């Protein structure tokens, strides 16, 4: 993997200002949703991004795609800088970066037919038209496990799993090189979830696109990812290839997160040692000084309360931001 990465995110920051005042808006605080994140993603690779609600993982996904303008930092896609480009300048690159959303009910326009939902992006980018367009749509429907005759139906006629397939077909339509999937299976039942995970895997083997897979379910992330990054309060605290991360987590937060997941195996569940974190995630408006995790960490020392630990990479590409890694 020495060649240039497909996606290179460097020190990306997104702060949302909190304003107050009647006539003149004063900024009274900032929500530090994404606070200096760097990551790389290679062609055909899947990077899993995990963390609890409010850790900034969805904001990060949207900021990378420039759906939300970043406060600072750089996002390079295939060598092209995306930050600072106008919408018009972004459009040709957008074609190569698509998104799959969490909520299959809210992410499809209820007043458009399936054919139109999948066909619009292709028309906008001038890829196909007329009969050719229709053929291409039917081919895509078939590829994601729907039938060609679904072409004229409306979203409400489909179940959650089928709608997620429609969302995938729409993302696939432009033959992207990168798909950012934001919790694509968390609204689905387990049996349907397995179908969609398998579909995403098959498509990647067939078309070779890269996935940035954002999810809170650690089991799903392990299954789909080559590498996994763990986020806490706007920062990546640990990153490694997925087997290493799950087998030997080095950040106490990752360790606690893994130990908190109930495993569907009663004997194993009872046998393993559990770490229960106290309290809730602190507010990202005024995150704790030093290491953000020190308020909930059992091995925190004075140093953790004052100095922020830098991300350090060991020889085998396991990155961790902790003064006292495990």
């Amino acid at each position, binding site marked *: 993997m020495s060649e240039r990465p497909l996606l290179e995110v460097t020190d990306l920051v997104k702060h949302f200002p909190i304003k107050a005042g009647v006539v003149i808006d004063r900024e009274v605080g900032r929500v530090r949703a994404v606070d200096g994140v760097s990551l790389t993603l290679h062609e055909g690779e899947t990077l899993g991004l995990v963390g*609890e609600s409010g850790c900034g993982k969805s904001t990060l996904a949207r900021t990378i795609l420039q759906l939300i303008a970043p406060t600072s930092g750089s996002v390079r896609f295939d060598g092209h800088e995306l930050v600072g480009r106008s919408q018009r300048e972004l459009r040709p690159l957008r074609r190569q970066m698509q998104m799959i959303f969490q909520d299959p009910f809210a992410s499809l326009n209820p007043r458009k037919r399936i054919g139109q939902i999948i066909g619009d992006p292709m028309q906008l980018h001038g890829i196909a038209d007329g009969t050719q367009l229709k053929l291409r749509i039917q081919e895509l429907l078939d590829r994601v496990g729907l039938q060609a005759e679904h072409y004229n139906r409306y979203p409400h006629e489909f179940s959650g799993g089928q709608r997620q397939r429609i969302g995938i077909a729409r993302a696939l339509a432009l033959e992207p090189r990168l798909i950012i999937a934001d919790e694509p299976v968390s609204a689905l039942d*387990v049996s349907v979830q397995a179908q969609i995970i*398998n579909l995403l895997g098959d498509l990647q083997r067939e078309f070779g696109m890269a996935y940035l897979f954002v999810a809170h379910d650690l089991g799903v992330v392990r299954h789909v990812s080559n590498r996994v990054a763990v986020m806490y309060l706007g920062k990546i605290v640990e990153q490694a290839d997925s087997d290493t991360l799950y087998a030997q987590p080095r950040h106490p937060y990752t360790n606690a997160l893994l130990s*908190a997941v109930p495993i*569907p195996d009663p004997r194993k569940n009872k046998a393993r040692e559990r770490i229960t974190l106290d309290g809730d*995630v602190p507010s990202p408006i005024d995150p704790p000084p030093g290491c953000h995790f020190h308020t909930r960490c059992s091995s925190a020392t004075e140093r953790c309360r004052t100095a922020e630990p830098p991300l350090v990479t060991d020889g085998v590409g396991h990155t961790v931001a902790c003064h006292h890694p495990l």
Partner: protein
Amino acid sequence: MSPILSVTDLRVSFATDEGVVHAVDGVSFDVNPGEVVAIVGESGCGKSVTAQTIIGLTRSPNATISGTATFGGRDLIGMPDDELRTVRGEHIAMVFQDPMTSLNPVYRVGDQIAEMIRAHRQVSKKEALARAGELLHSVGIPNPERRVRDYPHEFSGGMRQRVMIAMALALEPELLIADEPTTALDVTIQAQILNLLRTLNEEKNTAVVLITHDLGVVAELADKVVVMYAGQIVEQASLDELFYQPQHPYTWGLLGSIPRPDEIRPDRLPQIPGQPPSLRNPPTGCRFAARCDYTFSDCATLPGLESRLGTQHLDRCWLSADAKAGTR
């Protein structure tokens, strides 16, 4: 030991514009004192309707309910509303999935708990509020004296679920019905709430009916497991038997299709093809047959929920025990 709750042949159907939906179709199970019974299944399998019907929450003009749910020697299904109200809260309490919508946003949390206590007990407002504080303390909410004066929006999701549990336990019920109590919560918070439920179950000997879709949560908490599919129970067994000797192909599918954080699964997860049948017009034979890999001629008739191993382990599948042991 006689069960504290005994549900027999419960049937619930709802008349809708598109036809009659048979949401629950002949469900029977027992809950023993201090036992945790998990009801698992996917969306629309009837698990929540079962739980809600037991405490009378599905009574409405378009609902047809039959069967019995015997609790403390009395049948809850036919019980008049006002009698049922005294059973609810006093003897059976319920915790819902969404802690954001289960509390009234315009009343202080302490007042809501106190109101509930005063509806059932002859105590002064002051005493009830003091009790509310103790309850918040018992479910692990810091600074309870101050927190009773807070409004629901001042609590996080996990804290609100603790408030709901505190309220449910206020009158020390014998049975707690928890409908997806941790589904809306993050894993680290889920672990806290599961710990809390386990402690309460062990210390107060409160029986729990746990409704969930997450087999991990089941493995964590349950003593007995009921698996539902398309309005019916397809398998019922003790925790270990269900996980280590599952007898129904649907249970195999559920257990097999979970991506797990603790082990590497095959590249393609085993998946259950298709979708559950419509409950407006369920198939006459085995309801799982259309999605099952092991169907044969017998599957055209509906199998009964029976013990096929000669133990307490019940399943609804025609395959012989040998065939199951061989195919799984």
